[in-house]
Structures are given as C-alpha cells and as structure tokens.
C-alpha cells in the first residue's frame, strides 16, 4: 500500500474581501498525496484549486483544518522549522515569465535556493545549477540569459529546474502547461513524467485540462466551488465518472476526431459566484439531475466504488 506523504484534514480558507464580505475559496478539503504519485486537482476557474495549491505550499495560511507532512503537523510551523520544511515542497507556476525574477539570469535563479540553504561550496552550487539546467534539457549557455531572452517553454523548464534544486519530495504544479503551445506542452509534460520516474517525487498537478490530467495523473480530485465533488484513480474517475459534475465536465471536453461528433448534454449557466454560493449542493443550480433535496444539505464525500468517492446525495441513495 502506498505511503501518505502530504495530508490535509478538513482544510478551509476564507478570504475577507472587505465590507464585511468573505469568500470561502476552499471548504473542508481532506486529501492525501502518496509517495511517488501524481495527484491531479481539476476544476473550472474559481473552484479553489489554486488556493488549495497555495495552502499546500503554506503561501497562504489556512483558516481552519490541518496539514501534515510525513506525519508531522506543519500548519503552525514557523522560523527555522518552516525554512527546513520548505525544501520538501516546491512549486511550478502557471506563467513561466512572471514566476521568474526578470532581473535575474537563469543560472542565478536556479542557484538561489541552493544559496538559501548554503548547500556545499559556491563552486559546488554553481556546478549543481549547471547540472540542473542540463537535467531539464536547457543548453548551459541559457544559464546566462534573462527570462525575457528565453521562450515560454524554456522558462518553464527553468522553473522546474529551480523547483528541483532542493531535491523536494513534493512538487506542486499549478497549471504548468496551460500557457504553452501544444508542442511545447508535450515537451514539458514529458519532462515532468521523466523527472518523476527518475526521482520518485510526488506531484500535485493542478489543471483545468482534463486530457492533460488524464494523461499524467494517478489520482484525480475534482473540485467545484471550493469543495471536492469526486476523487479517485484517474482512469476510473475520468472514464466512468460518478458525480454529475464530473460527467458534465468530461462531456464538455472537445473530441479528438471529427468522426466522434455527437450531440452533447451541455451544462446550463455558469459557475455560481463563490461570494454567494447556492445552499446545499453548490452544483445543483447547473445540475441536470438536481432535485429539491439538493438544496437542503451539503453532500458529504462518500465512497461510491472501489477507491472512488463522490459528494452527491443522489449517489448516496443508490
């Protein structure tokens, strides 16, 4: 059985947005990331997947709930302990340009985390930075370039190299390929898969693109308005979805061949405002199978099959 590396317990995050209003970005999310696996978090914009990623990285302080890393509660750590923990979890960002300091050459950007932890001598750190550049397939003389002198794909490789510098156990990737062209996207996805195979790190892969998620992930978490609606092994969830939202999502994905054209059941309307979420099941306003009951209670995440859980009262009653 796989070993849990990063766990969250009923993690919630509420933002105060002034004038007494608050926005519940993440609600009661409990998840487990196992060693060596790729866990994808999927959802439409505003579903809280990016906030969740930031919570995992402690870039954001959770409002409630806990995070454990390797069995240790890390939700309250600070100072030197936090610094030591940080090297375990690293991040790859969506926009390859803005995630790099525009006034720092690539080599220095990669060396920075090493400098922070004073790993080895300066010479060794330079050497390691070179190795990392090489590892992500960048020519060494790219090391002397500024981000704006690199293409998007090269920047993203640089971002990955930087994230790998501290030999992290977890890589949190927030939409790492959504800003890239298809051919470059493939390069980066390949790189990430290679790295995982070689280094055995765990990856949290946040994405809205179901085909990418299907391709790369072991397990999938589907989120809607800050809550998990379905989770389970990628092949099961994405091939035989249980939750009506997952179904609708998959149905919306463009086909890969014109011969597969068919009439689809389109979701009506759009995601409700997180400022003013619907009562009960947040998805009920768009759900094709919603009943009156859906407005009453917030459905709990329950096992609906082998390794698969979903949050829908219609599935409970089955």
């Amino acid at each position, binding site marked *: 059985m796989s070993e849990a590396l990063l766990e969250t317990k009923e993690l919630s995050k509420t933002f105060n947005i002034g004038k007494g209003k608050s926005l519940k970005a993440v609600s009661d999310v409990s998840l487990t990331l196992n060693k060596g696996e790729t866990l994808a978090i999927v959802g439409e914009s505003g579903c809280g997947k990016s906030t969740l990623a930031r919570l995992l*990285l402690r870039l954001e302080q959770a409002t409630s709930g806990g995070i454990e890393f390797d069995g240790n509660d890390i939700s309250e750590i600070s100072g030197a302990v936090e610094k030591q923990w940080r090297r375990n979890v690293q991040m790859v960002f969506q926009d390859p340009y*803005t995630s*790099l300091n525009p006034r720092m050459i690539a080599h220095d950007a990669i060396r920075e985390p090493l400098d*922070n932890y004073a790993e080895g001598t300066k010479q060794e750190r330079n050497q390691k930075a*070179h190795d990392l550049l090489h590892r992500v397939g960048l020519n*060494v003389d790219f090391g*002397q370039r500024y981000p*704006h002198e690199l293409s998007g794909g090269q920047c993203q490789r640089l*971002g990955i190299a930087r994230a790998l510098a501290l030999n992290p156990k977890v890589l949190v990737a927030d939409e790492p390929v959504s800003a890239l062209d298809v051919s470059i996207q493939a390069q980066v996805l390949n790189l990430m898969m290679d790295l995982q195979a070689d280094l055995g790190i765990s990856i949290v892969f946040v994405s809205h693109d179901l085909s990418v998620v299907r391709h790369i992930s072991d397990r999938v978490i589907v989120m809607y308005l800050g809550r998990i609606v379905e989770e389970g092994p990628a092949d099961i969830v994405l091939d035989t979805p249980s939750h009506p939202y997952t179904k609708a999502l998959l149905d919306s994905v463009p086909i890969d061949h014109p011969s597969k054209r068919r009439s689809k059941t389109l979701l009506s309307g759009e995601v409700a405002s997180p400022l003013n979420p619907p009562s009960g099941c947040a998805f009920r306003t768009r759900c094709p199978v919603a009943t009156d009951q859906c407005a009453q209670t917030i459905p709990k995440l329950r096992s609906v099959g082998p390794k698969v859980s979903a949050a829908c009262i219609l599935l409970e009653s089955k």
Partner: protein
Amino acid sequence: MNTSQTVPRQHVQRSRMVDFRRFLSEFTDGRVEKSAVLILIAALLISVIAPMVYHSYSDINPLDRMKPPSADHFFGTDHLGRDVFERTMVGTRNSLIIGFSVAIATTIIGCILGLVSGFISFGDKIIMRLMDGFMAIPNVLLAIALVALMGSSLLTIIIAISVPEIPRMARIVRSVVVSLKEMPFIDAAVTMGTPQWKILLRHLLPNTVGALSVQATATCASAIMTEAILSFLGAGTPPNIPSWGGIIAESRVFFQIAPWAIGFPGLMLSLLVLSVNILGDRLREVLDPRVARRRS
C-alpha cells in the same frame, strides 16, 4: 557569449559590460537621444572643468554693466558687470549638483520609506498619512517655507526641493512594491526559503529600478526647474553660488534690455532639462518590461 561553449560546464559570469553596451546602444538609438547624451556629457564636463578655470564669476565690475556679447564676454555681462559666460559655466555645476543631489536624496529616502511601508508594512498607514500630509502642501510653497526656515545655501536649497518630492517617490516605490509582492516570482522565492531581507534586496529592489530611475530623472529635471522658480521668488541660491536658475532670475527684469543675460543661461538650462527629460522618456521605454518583452 561563445566562450561558454568552449569552456563547457564552467560558470562563466555574464559580462555586465556587454549588457551595458547593449543597453546603451538601445538607449541612444535615434539622433535626439544621442544629442541628449552629448549635452549631458558636455554639461558634466563643464561642471567639472569650469570651476577650475573660472574664478572671477562673482566679480562685480560696475563699469562693465549689461554689455552685449563680445570677444571679452562671450555671453555679455549682467547688471553688475559680471561675466555671464563665466557665471553660466560655473553655474552648470551648481545646477547639476542641485538636480542630481535632489534626485539621489529623494530616491534613497523615498525608496526606504516606500519599501518599509510597502513590503514590511511597518507603519504603512502612518507613513502614508504623513506622505499625504506633505503632498497636501504645494511643493514650491513648502520649499520656500523651508528655505525661509533654513536660510539659503546650496545644501538647504537641495533639502528644500527634496522634501516635497520625497512623498511622490515613496508612493511610487510603494505602489511598485505592492504590485510586485503579488508576482509569482516572489511566491517562488518564499517557497524556496529565501529570507525576507534577501527577497527585498534581490527580488524587489532590482525590479523597482525601472520606475525609480524614470522618476529620478524626472525629479532631477524638475529640481533644476524648481530652483529657478525659487530664485525667481527670492528663495534661490545665494548670489555667490551662481546657478542657472539664479542667474536667470537675477537678470529677468532686464529681459528686454539685456536679453543675453537670461538668454544664454536660459538656453543652457532648457537644453539640459530637455536632455534629461528626453533621456528619462527613453529610459522609460527601454526599461519598460512590456517593451523589453516585445523587443526580445
């Protein structure tokens, strides 16, 4: 750049000189920019050399009053018979000192205030309120009042012009810092364990350079102008420290009779301020990350 291929796997520091040269060539493309740079260099040279060469710039010669330009007096003489050319040449240094000192002083102090309130958020509210207070007093009036308080000398003029400019600079730095703070690369720095001070110095500060240098050039130009206005209002540099503004202001009532006494220093002042402004504009273009992105 090719050296890195012949010496592989060895860290070769990118040559800053190459960067600088490229920056310079981008910076000075165009005839207008080139002339502006030349004017600035000329002014710098004059300001270094003139005080060594000319010593009689304050010498009054009542018998030689308001003489038009001639071989003896290239720019003519003023109402006290002083040589306008010598005064203008020596004034170059004082005007430049005022411009540059104000720019440097406001940049440093404004930068510290902006960083403290924008990044550390220490006393953000109080600092910004204070800045609001200073900005609620028209800058020239504040400067006159400060000169009245401190008396008139090169140093006090510099302080008087700087104080009202600091809030502007502080606000600019603060707004840049506040928006930079939201940039993913700052998050990235946090996740890789970069200490706060290092984030401040290595990530934030270098990225404020663009906004800072643009504002600094604008401040430099406006300081030279403000000094002229202070002189006009009787609160400028003392007569034994000629500055362009002071020279013009002193001779202004004679503009119909001895136009040379304001014309030449006026021309110098306008040329220099124009050059600094043009270079500031250029700097804005070259340093603008959006423009840089488009160029690459």
